[in-house]
């Protein structure tokens, strides 16, 4: 093995783990900037805050891997959250409430998938429409007001701990594990990558691409409703305007994690790293008491720099 090929191997390795390297770099920088950053308590705090976006971003990863996009997740989150809250405050059985809450989100996701796959419409437009519809339904259902008054047991989902670990974090890691297995170890997962890589070829090889596509949007809706329920539980209230702009944070997490918007490349682990990068950035800017105007510039700049480096390294490949 020559020195040169060794070097190129290191570069390849670095390219593969670049989002992880970025995350570690950010953690090191933050540790120097703020003495409060690297404490168990704060790290727990960050992962709990990240969990909502991470769960959305897991679903978004499935969609983006097929080369699509799901803009409706923030609104679906809000709809599931107000429906869950509304039914719960009406005294319905909590298990039934959760099933309905999650069912609604999954159903809207399924609809997105049907319109994209069978309707042959662009995912951007379909989910943009769904984003507006779901937000409207949220406002209709809630009459524009926050809904509160939950069962004590419901708060466990968002504010509880198991062995000292916040429940949302446990949910996030459980969903991460399941999604990882689905993407890497099942035929469904392989077809998700295949569609993103070359849809025509996948279809010609006899795979029912419509089914796969409908599946990924349903997964995205399913996960959006789970994060909506966690958010309502965490806030002890369902907010009709919850989740506005969350779709962009989720997309940013996916892309920061190295998944290509063109589809076919990337994965779930990167997405979690991307979500952590965004979460640490938010946390760090608060810890450092950075003024509001500068925060926006800093966040945007980090995303742009990350994507810039990503495209450059892809070009080199």
């Amino acid at each position: 093995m020559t020195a040169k090929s060794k070097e190129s191997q290191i570069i390849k390795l670095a390219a593969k783990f670049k989002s992880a390297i970025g995350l570690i770099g950010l953690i090191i920088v933050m540790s120097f900037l703020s003495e409060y950053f690297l404490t168990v308590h704060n790290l727990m705090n960050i992962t709990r805050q990240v969990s909502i976006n991470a769960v959305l971003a897991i679903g978004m990863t499935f969609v983006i891997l097929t080369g699509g996009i799901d803009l409706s997740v923030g609104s679906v989150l809000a709809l599931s959250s107000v429906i869950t809250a509304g039914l719960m405050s009406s005294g319905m059985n909590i298990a039934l409430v959760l099933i309905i809450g999650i069912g609604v989100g999954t159903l809207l996701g399924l609809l997105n998938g049907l319109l994209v796959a069978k309707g042959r419409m662009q995912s951007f437009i379909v989910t943009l429409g769904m984003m507006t519809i779901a937000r409207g339904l949220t406002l209709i259902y809630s009459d524009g007001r926050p809904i509160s008054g939950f069962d004590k047991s419901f708060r466990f989902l968002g504010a509880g701990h198991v062995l000292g670990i916040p429940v949302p974090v446990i949910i996030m890691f459980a969903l991460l594990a399941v999604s990882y297995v689905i993407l890497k170890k099942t035929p469904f997962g392989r077809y998700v990558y295949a569609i993103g890589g070359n849809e025509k070829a996948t279809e010609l090889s006899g795979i029912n691409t419509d089914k796969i596509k409908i599946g990924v949007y349903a997964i995205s809706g399913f996960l959006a409703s789970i994060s909506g329920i966690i958010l309502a539980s965490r806030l002890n209230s369902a907010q009709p305007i919850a989740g506005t702009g969350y779709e962009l944070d989720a997309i940013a997490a996916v892309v920061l994690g190295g998944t290509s918007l063109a589809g076919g490349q990337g994965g779930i682990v990167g997405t979690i790293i991307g979500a952590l990068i965004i979460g640490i950035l938010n946390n760090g800017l608060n810890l450092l008491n950075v003024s509001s105007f500068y925060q926006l510039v800093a966040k945007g700049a980090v995303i742009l720099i990350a994507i810039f480096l990503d495209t450059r390294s892809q070009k080199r490949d």
Partner: protein
Amino acid sequence: MFKKLVTLGLVLLMAMGLFGCAKDGAKDDGKLKIGFAVSTQNNPFFVDMKNGLEAKAEELGFEVLTVDAQDDAAKQLSSIEDLIMKGIDVLVVNPVDGDAVVTAIESANNSNIPVITVDRGANGGEVTAHIASDNVAGGVMAADFIAEKINKAGKVVELEGIAGTSAARDRGKGFNQGIDKYDSIEVVASQPADFNRAKGMTVMENILQSQREIDAVFAHNDSMALGAMEAIEGAGRDIIIVGFDAIDDAVQAVKDGKIAATVAQQPSLIGEIAVETAQKIANEEVVEEFIKVPLKLVK
């Protein structure tokens, strides 16, 4: 020939329909017709404003046509044009955007319909009266209340609204003016949480990490105050919280002793005063150009 007759018939029918509409629009049964263009019904504050306005109008026997712009300035413009077409006597508008609404106000001016702005102002056109609460005074009120609660010494945190909005600017300005009067009170952190409950919680959680000593929090609105409350409860710390707007949840939290106070704008009173002002304008009485609606502290 038959086809032509049918077409002619249809055209006549449509013309009659139009004529009927126009007549209906201009009909004058002595009932004052108020057009109310609200920015959004996405926020309990504006829902209360609308309810106050409609209740007062009903009491006085006026008719109200309400349109909701859903925070979309373009939609507001077109729906105000619709209101003008329907022959309203006075336009009450709660602008989505102070600049974008100018075109709509100018069209009302051209139709000789007097315009009242509520809550947010307009940056042009001819506005007869502007009705709003005095946010700067509200910020000062919060600062004085906190100072009294912590014996004029201690560390306070400010949760700011969306950067660049007038509410965030004015409330922050009033609060900092108020706090500046007390030498021993220090604002240890001022961070934006965008008027949003989830963000209020997250940002407060983060501030709690870096500030070991906090005596009080002032949030530019209740949603952030309630989010901060969850964060503070989660951390098991004892901090005085003051919000702004007095939405239902916050008033309940004050009753439960979970937050200390909320500065109440009186949205439903803003709506009521808008109707009274509209009546005065219709009766050609002189009204003040800027009507400040009093705030109150719910504690």
